[in-house]
């Protein structure tokens, strides 16, 4: 009883009010998809209470009027790099590993989330003549890992899709949340420009391979119900070059490789999922692998966990959860106190019948948790062979570890 009462109140006293909504939006809709949702009992402290509340506010009826990801669709690029109005959520998710000229090792992460608070504006048309009138808001997260400086920084924003403050152009071209921007999506080269605290990144992105559709032809089932799915594709290998301003430490020219994930959906909630471990791995040999393991409350993988095996210059294949073994080797406690796995043994039986791949995935830095309203771990990783030699790089995203 005590906990019930005091938990949410502390939340209110502590967190900035704006954060409450967005925590809810995040928890309920976007980032964690099925992870926390309604599963978190109210007596858990911070995110649970608010999440539940917003889940109630936003859940259920709010899918009314939104389009659902309930059937395969034809993808077309660059058109589909642009926004898909009518779905409740959509994100642009770019992660990457970067190198400086003197062996500096860096990583970055930027996510643009569009969230429809409602499918359309309610009320009489008379009220819709303001440039501010919009049912959509944007959330954006950025992070940078600077291994030499021993630094991981992250930032988040919430801005309404109105008055030119944030949005995505139609036809495709530009995604922006104030002065964070992903532009040129209709071109061969994209421009990414954003800041994380003192860091400013200006990067030129050049996709190295065509977009790869995830799930079944781009329809990624996340829950048992039809429509509890998303449209999902990746651009797994993107060459990066550009410049990072590092506050007092000056500018640094960088090169590297990035990965873009794109997803849009309306309802993806499932009750028996507490979080996921997602990997975007780029092997030096040219192979790219995406795999996410949805975790059930007992820690076992959910049968809907899946991935994609994307060899260079060959067909790509769906990775079913029984084709992948993922075993955490080491855990690390973050400054926030949450514990995440930071090193894994991974074994993949390639669906194309080639020999099994066995390797180690290891975070380049243990502490890469996002200091955002909803906590998650988003970090650069190295891929090591059995001898410990690096054979690739990638990014991992770990969610649902902050609940207790």
């Amino acid at each position: 009883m005590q906990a019930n009462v005091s938990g949410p109140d502390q939340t209110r006293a502590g967190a900035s009010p704006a954060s409450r909504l967005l925590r809810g939006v995040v928890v309920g809709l976007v980032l964690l998809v099925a992870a926390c949702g309604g599963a978190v009992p109210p007596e858990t402290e911070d995110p649970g209470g608010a999440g539940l509340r917003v889940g109630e506010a936003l859940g259920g009826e709010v899918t009314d009027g939104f389009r659902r990801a309930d059937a395969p669709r034809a993808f077309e690029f660059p058109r589909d790099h642009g926004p898909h109005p009518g779905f409740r959520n959509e994100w642009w998710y770019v992660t990457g590993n970067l190198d400086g000229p003197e062996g500096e090792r860096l990583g970055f992460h930027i996510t643009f989330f569009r969230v429809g608070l409602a499918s359309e504006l309610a009320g009489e048309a008379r009220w819709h003549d303001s440039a501010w009138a919009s049912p959509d808001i944007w959330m954006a997260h950025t992070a940078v890992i600077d291994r030499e400086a021993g630094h991981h920084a992250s930032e988040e924003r919430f801005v309404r899709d109105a008055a030119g403050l944030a949005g995505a152009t139609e036809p495709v071209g530009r995604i922006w949340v104030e002065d964070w921007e992903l532009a040129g999506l209709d071109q061969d080269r994209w421009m990414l420009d954003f800041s994380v605290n003192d860091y400013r990144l200006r990067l030129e992105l050049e996709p190295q391979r065509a977009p790869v559709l995830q799930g079944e032809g781009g329809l990624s089932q996340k829950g048992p119900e039809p429509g509890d799915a998303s449209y999902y594709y990746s651009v797994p290998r993107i060459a990066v070059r550009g410049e990072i301003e590092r506050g007092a430490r000056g500018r640094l020219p960088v090169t590297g490789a990035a990965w873009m994930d794109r997803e849009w959906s309306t309802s993806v909630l499932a009750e028996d999922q507490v979080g996921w471990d997602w990997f975007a791995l780029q092997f030096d040999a040219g192979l790219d692998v995406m795999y996410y393991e949805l975790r059930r409350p007992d820690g076992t993988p959910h049968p809907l966990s899946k991935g994609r095996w994307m060899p260079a210059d060959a067909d790509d294949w769906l990775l079913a959860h029984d084709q992948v073994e993922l075993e955490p080797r080491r855990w690390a406690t973050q400054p926030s106190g949450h514990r995440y796995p930071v090193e894994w043994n991974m074994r993949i039986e390639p669906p194309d019948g080639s020999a099994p791949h066995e390797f180690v995935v290891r975070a380049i830095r243990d502490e890469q948790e996002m200091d955002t309203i909803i906590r998650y771990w988003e970090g650069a990783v190295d891929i090591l062979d059995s001898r410990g030699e690096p054979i690739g790089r990638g990014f991992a995203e770990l969610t649902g570890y902050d609940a207790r």
Partner: protein
Amino acid sequence: MSRSLVHAWLRDWRRRPLQRLLTLVAVVIAVAVVLAVDLANQSAQQAFDRSMDEVAGTATHQILGPAGGFAETHYRDLRLAGWRATAPIVEGPARLPDGRTIYVLGVDPLAEGAFRGVASDIGDAPVQRLVTEPGTILPPRGWWADAGREHEDRLILESAAGRFAVTLLDRAAEGDEAATDVDGEGASLWVTDIATAQTLLGRQGRLDRIDVSLDDAALETLAEQLPDGLELVPVAARDQASRELAQAFRINLTAMSLLALLIAAFLIYNTQTFAVLRRREVLASLRLVGAGRRALFGVVMLEALLVGVIGTLLGVLLGIGLAQVLVGQVAQTMTDHFFVVAVTEVAPRPLALLAVIALGVGLSLLAALAPAWEAARVASPGRLGRGRLERRARRGLLGLAVAALVLLAAGGVVLRLGAGGLVASFVGLFLLITGFVLLLPLVLAAALRGLARLGRGQTLPRIGVRSLERSLSRSAPATSALTLALAAAISVSVMVGSFRDSVEQWLGQALTSDVYVVPVAPAAARSGARLPAEWGQALARIAAAESVSTGSSQDTPSDVGMIELYVVAPHPAWLDDLPLLRAEGPTEALDRRLRERDAVLVTEPFAAHHDVAVGDRLEIRVEDGRRVFEVAGVYRDYGSPQGTVLMLTQRFYAGTPGAEGVGSFGLRLPEGADADVAIERLEAWLAERETAAMVTRPGDIEQESMAIFDRTFAITHLLRVITLLVAFIAIFGALMALQMERAREFATLRSLGLLPGGVRGLVVFQGAVLGGFAALAAIPLGLGMGWILIEVINREAFGWGMDLRLPWGEVGETVLLGIGAALLASAIPAWRMARMRLVPALREQP
């Protein structure tokens, strides 16, 4: 102190409940009035501050534009340039169906977190609905209770842009108990999403301000980056003028309550003294049975303490009730003049409560001190007679007069110096009042003697007059109380009357057009609403007008802070109508200077507040940046207590005059033209326009202005009534006491053959004499106070000058009121004396 002693002393309560109750009533009223005014002041102040804080939030600065807001793209540009500690605001007044004005604050909930709690919380379903359902609004929490509306109800709001049906959202109804913490009781703003606010207030594409919260270093950079037309202004600077004015208004009120207290003090003293003297036989017998002096002193003081405590407690309750009435009045005034304030609760501050309790109990004890001391001091209590006291009182008159003269002189000096501002002025005024009042007993005694001499041969009137004189210690304080109350009433009449006259005269002068075209908006919003400037020609043609004037008010930054700038394109020869107070040269030259050079006129309050004189320079932000303007003249204007700067259109606009519209058009019709015809035509034309506008005559504007004026002073009338009530009770108590003391005489007269009706007549006559004296004495005092209020206090507080007008009608009314009050107050004593049983009265000791 023995119980029986206390019993013996307090038995009188049962015997003469009415008399004792009077003492109680005096304390109750004194405490109630002071507390009520303090409460009302505090509550209004809190509401005012809260409103200011709500509006400003935690912003340190605000970005303001010239007039009617600025393009919202400026905000986008700032945000895209990385200025994140900023929040866009669209705000303005609107009117409820019941005619009350509310203040609408349009915010972007996503940008609010750093500034205001009130609508930042999209996690709350209602706040989210603000965004997804334009046309929804969050009324202040305290509004619901009395409004009789429910969550989801539709309500018609009238604003500068027209009439809108909004949907009311109640956080509580959406199950958000936590909202209380954020919102707080008594919040006064109607919060809505910025999109709704733009539509509701007709501000599409525009913002009224951008709130900024930054440290100094960042501010400098920001200020440099701001485009032309935008200014970064500290929040404090924007509120300063309003705060000062509100304070002046409150000091005025407090002074009124202290006046009531002063009157009540006379009353308490009167009844307390009487309470002791009435029981001198009891005192005598107590002495005889061996009660010591200290015991007697103690028992008298104990009673005073009881009266004080009970009276104070009741007074606190009454005061809280009374405050509910007052607070609405105060809030209304503040809303009319300074800001929209919604006061929903009256919360006594512990400290003020303590002060008032100390005041009530202390005053009771203090007033009883003299009689208690007297009671204890006299060797043989039998000698504690009225005559003796009266003789002493008369001897004291001279000392009193000396003190009075000293006070009068001191008051004069304080007022003359006038250095300490408003408070010093009030101190001076109170010194003068007290001095005058202390002089009253002496004058009263002389007047009564004179009257008695005059009435030689008129035996009965002579008895009446001489017995008043003999009971000077009784009649003088009561008369003083009534004098004070009447003087206060007269002074308020003089002040308000003069003010009202001056305002009316000014309106007549200022409204030089025959017809006005103004935006459709509640009065408070009108200065912000705009009409297309290009209408001017069309309007002139349609109305066949001789000339068209335009005027627009706007807040603009200057080197003396935010100022109200009135940009006008006047009729020809307009300066002949303007009540210029100080200016150099002929009006033609002045007109040319205003047109051709950077010169402005300022209003009298502006000159007073900013200490500006003709020839001084002001740096004022105009359309294309700041320029220095010379003050070419000061004119009388009651339009704004803060003061206004008047500038001609061509000096303000670099390019097209009135780019963002004008506040109003004034049309001057040719001699003999029928205004009704012109109005009809204009209305037909306006009906086809998209922008809502209406035609109004000077008379309508005058009427509305005077209505606001009268509302402002309604509270002073209320206090006046309370003051008179206190005085009425004082005179009632005094007459009651007087007649009781003179019972033996009356009984003798009755035994000699005076009819009961004669007794009644005699008592009423005495009341009339006291009332008449008070009324006569109140005339000079009241006129003097009125003069000081006008010439010193109002100037000090508002910077308003006005022509002294002696409202003889109201003065006469007040005099009659005083005599009437005294007559009314003598009704019960007269009736009681006439019905008195003669034999017991005859047996009383002389």
